[in-house]
């Protein structure tokens, strides 16, 4: 029963209304029955009619007494839609908590106003209403699912905080529809309240799967009553950053690096000459500042910095001069080693003597430095006899280079392969000394090993045709772009090459360059998290004369940069992106401290078939520095930063007229100035009638007594 009464079963007491009638009938049976010939004097007389009316009135009053008593006990509720007011009702509150809601509105913020309005809305909800709360910050998130505990819902809404995220309504609305449809109960009325500043980028941006927020909202309107609660706001003049990153992703000490950023200005500029004032900070210390007039559009700005010591640095950039300060900051977390180490394994070298091949390679990777000048290379090379690799911690090296070796020990393979799988890089130079069978058995392993292709044999350059040259593949890899220029790499510099077996289908390596005879020259393969590159040639004379080229060091260093990748990418995130990193030692819980100093417990989990545990965190709703409290060595990078999405920088918003045109009719727009409770109170206000009924009951009793006395006096 969709209850009009709180205790409908007490309506059984309505039977009591028949008691006066029964008493009346019993008394009627006890009346004398007298024959009266002159009854005509009594019939159709006004007093009799009047008395009959009086008696009927008294009987009605007496019947009403138990009726009102029963009704009062059943606690009737009165709403504007009659019984509908107390129908099952599901109220879905969607709080836009994107960072644009942090804009100042009056003396408060848009989000604080939205929160207060939502709390007041819950306060006027009738008892028994089910409330769900969904927030839209860096992602749509259901905070509360169908609770009748209005107090708890109010407390939750009151405790909501603004997110620094910038998800779009197109992400939230498609999730609401199936959820509300699936959960809808019979005879249930659903109402959707969207509290937002109606920023255009939030409301008009399409979702990742192409969802159109306008269409989604129209679909929801068919499912529920939709209230668009505008909490106000304006379009302030706003500076905001869209990016901040070093030009060179691999940072080392002793070398000056440029950090580039783009700052944009949106909104109506203030009167006068607005100036953007940018401050560059490293680990909280102000390092440099730039100020320039800036009214609208984009501006690219660069700051230079030279790191003196190795370590992890928090680069921070701020801008001043606008009217919306929440997005005036941008972070970059940089890992700065002394240098990036490259380990060269060469059978012809030992602790005292380097083979020519290793010497050339080492000089190309790490050219001689000149005092007083910046480093010419961010890499340093270390040559080592292969058997000594057992003593080395390979994770200290950004790449391991194997010069053509006749034999490959099992220890080497066991050490090298896990290193690559966990993100390291290996480079093979396949010279004439290379034993194809040994390599194929231990390093190729039918495509499961490190080598990108199966080796066939070492061959001389074709006689009469001159030495071989290199030509790049059709899709030029940035690291080999230089090879495309034949002037830089002239033909005839290679005397021997390693030919490969025809592809057996077990592996499909990427070919970056070919020999001039058409055979693959440089191949690459991704193995788990690491990379492997194979040069089908020697690293130096007498088989290869490439090291004689001036651009050879550039080629190699570009190759190493490619292999090293962007080590800081995984610790520089935007709101909503997921932080993920391998846990080296422990499977114990880790504590993550968020920018607002709140703590989150993280549990390392196995993410794939390997032995490594991974810790993952996707609730990156706040801008700033996140830090995982862990022992040294447990995590490679225990800190990461989260920046705002640049889409929230433009605070242009939809007005009521815009929303009406776009979303169509059938939705209620609640203006910023109007109180939500006044708008919906009439809809929700349920009047408890028990008191009224008791009052009426008392009045009836008094009235009945007075009338009975008055009628009785007349009869005497």
């Amino acid at each position, binding site marked *: 029963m969709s209850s009009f009464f709180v205790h409908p079963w007490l309506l059984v007491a309505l039977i009591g209304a028949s008691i006066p009638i029964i008493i009346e009938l019993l*008394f*009627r049976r*006890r*009346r*004398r*029955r*007298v*024959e*009266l*010939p*002159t*009854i*005509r*004097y*009594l*019939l159709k*007389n*006004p*007093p*009799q009619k009047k*008395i009959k009316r009086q008696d009927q009135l008294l009987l009605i009053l007496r019947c009403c007494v138990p009726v009102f008593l029963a009704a009062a006990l059943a606690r009737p509720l009165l709403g504007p839609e009659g019984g509908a007011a107390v129908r099952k009702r599901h109220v879905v509150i969607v709080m836009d908590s994107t960072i644009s809601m942090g804009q100042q509105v009056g003396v408060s913020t848009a989000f604080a106003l939205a929160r207060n309005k939502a709390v007041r809305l819950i306060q006027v909800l009738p008892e028994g209403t089910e409330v769900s709360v969904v927030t839209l910050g860096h992602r749509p998130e259901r905070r509360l699912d169908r609770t009748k505990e209005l107090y708890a819902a109010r407390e939750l809404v009151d405790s909501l905080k603004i997110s620094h995220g910038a998800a779009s309504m197109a992400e939230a609305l498609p999730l609401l529809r199936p959820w509300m449809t699936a959960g809808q109960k019979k005879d249930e009325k659903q109402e959707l309240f969207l509290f937002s500043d109606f920023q255009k980028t939030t409301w008009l941006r399409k979702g990742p799967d192409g969802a159109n927020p306008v269409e989604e909202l129209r679909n929801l309107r068919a499912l529920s009553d939709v209230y668009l609660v505008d909490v106000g706001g304006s379009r302030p003049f706003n500076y905001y950053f869209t990016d901040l990153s070093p030009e060179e992703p691999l940072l080392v000490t002793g070398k000056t690096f440029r950090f580039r950023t783009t700052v944009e200005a949106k909104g109506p500029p203030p009167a006068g000459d607005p100036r953007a004032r940018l401050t560059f900070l490293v680990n909280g210390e102000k390092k440099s500042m730039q100020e320039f007039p800036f009214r609208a559009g984009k501006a690219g700005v660069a700051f230079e910095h030279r790191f003196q010591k190795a370590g992890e640095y928090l680069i921070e950039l701020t801008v001043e001069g606008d009217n919306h300060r929440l997005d005036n900051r941008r972070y970059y977390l940089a890992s700065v080693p002394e240098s990036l180490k490259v380990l060269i394994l060469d059978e012809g070298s030992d602790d005292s003597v380097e083979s020519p091949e290793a010497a050339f390679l080492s000089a190309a990777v790490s050219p001689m430095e000149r005092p007083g000048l910046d480093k010419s290379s961010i890499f340093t090379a270390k040559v080592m006899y292969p058997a000594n690799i057992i003593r080395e911690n390979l994770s200290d090296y950004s790449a391991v280079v194997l010069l053509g070796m006749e034999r490959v020990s099992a220890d080497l393979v066991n050490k090298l392969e896990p290193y690559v799988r966990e993100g390291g890089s290996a480079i093979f130079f396949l010279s004439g000394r290379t034993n194809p069978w040994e390599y194929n058995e231990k390093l190729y392993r039918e495509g499961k090993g490190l080598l990108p292709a199966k080796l066939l044999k070492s061959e001389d350059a074709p006689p009469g045709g001159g030495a071989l040259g290199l030509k790049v593949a059709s899709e030029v890899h940035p690291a080999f772009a230089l090879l495309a220029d034949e002037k830089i790499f002239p033909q005839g510099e290679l005397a021997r090459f390693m030919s490969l077996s025809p592809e057996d289908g077990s592996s499909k390596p990427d070919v970056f360059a070919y020999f001039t005879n058409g055979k693959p020259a440089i191949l690459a393969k991704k193995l788990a998290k690491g990379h492997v590159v194979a040069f089908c040639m020697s690293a130096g004379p007498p088989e290869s004369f490439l090291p004689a080229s001036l651009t050879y060091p550039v080629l190699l260093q570009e190759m190493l940069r490619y292999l090293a990748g962007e080590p800081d990418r995984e610790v520089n995130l935007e709101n909503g992106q997921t932080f993920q990193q391998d846990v080296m030692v422990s499977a114990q819980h880790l504590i993550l401290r968020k920018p607002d100093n709140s703590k989150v417990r993280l549990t390392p989990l196995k993410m794939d078939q390997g032995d490594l545990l991974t810790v993952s965190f996707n609730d990156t709703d706040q801008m700033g520095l996140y830090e995982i409290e862990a022992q040294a060595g447990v995590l490679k990078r225990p800190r990461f930063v989260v920046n705002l999405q640049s889409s929230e920088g433009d605070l242009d918003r939809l007005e009521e007229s815009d929303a009406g045109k776009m979303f169509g009719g059938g939705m209620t727009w609640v203006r910023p100035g109007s109180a939500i409770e006044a708008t919906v109170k009439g809809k929700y206000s349920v009047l408890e009638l028990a008191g009224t009924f008791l009052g009426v009951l008392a009045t009836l009793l008094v009235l009945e007594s007075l009338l009975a006395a008055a009628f009785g006096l*007349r*009869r*005497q």
Partner: protein
Amino acid sequence: MNIFDPHVIARIERLELRARTLVEGFMIGIHRSPYHGISTDFAEHRHYVQGDDTRHLDWKVYARSDRFYVKKYEQDTNLEARFLLDSSRSMFFKSEDAPMSKFEYGATVVASLAYLFYRQRDAVGLTLFDDELRQTLPPRASFAHFRHLTETVEKATPGPDTRLGNVLKKIGLQIRRRGLVILVSDFLDDLDAFGEGLGLHNFEGNEVILFRVEDPIEKEFPYRGPTIFLGMEQEGNLVCNPLDLRTHYLAERERHISSLYGACRKHGFMMEEARTDAPLDGMLSGFLNMRSALFRR
């Protein structure tokens, strides 16, 4: 012991005996006939006027005085009295304290007056009626007829309803000779039709004497407490507290009786009222007074 006391009279079961007891005790005189005509008893002379029957001229007086006189004679007591006794259901009502029902009281009155008429050699007839004429005895002046009349009354059973107007009209059409009509009833009927009936008798030249019989409780309406009143002639029932309606009842009764008297006055008839607990000699003396008044008219 007052023989006129209804409580006493009621002990006499036979109606004939009741009548004789009452009348003998009352010592009535002989009526004078108000009707003049051909008779052996000379009454007076008067001057002849144009239109008089020449057969009644007194030639001897003409011979002596040379004037025309006509002889006038006094008619003997050959009165035809017709009793109309209401035998509707309401007449059979008898309250607890009343000595007899209205019908019994009326029947006693009718029998007494019939015996009185018999003693005067007047012919008496009887009609029992309710909503229709139920039984009619034509006027006769023998004792056997008187006895037959009393037996007829004794055997009367309650009829359904009272329709006085209808009955008076039918009786009026049956009477060929002007006479006396004595109507005994409780007159609980529509008075408009009743008035029309009286008008017919007035037109026919009949004298009508009305006896309205009433139970004491009908007059006093002493009921108290919740009561269901049952109508005796299809009026229906009434649930009420009598105290609430007593004033109205008495006013309605007065209005009804006033209307009744009004109808009688309109046609020059008289009405005597009698409660069933009232002494019967009052009734008889009342009747004789009315008769005297009629003769003086």
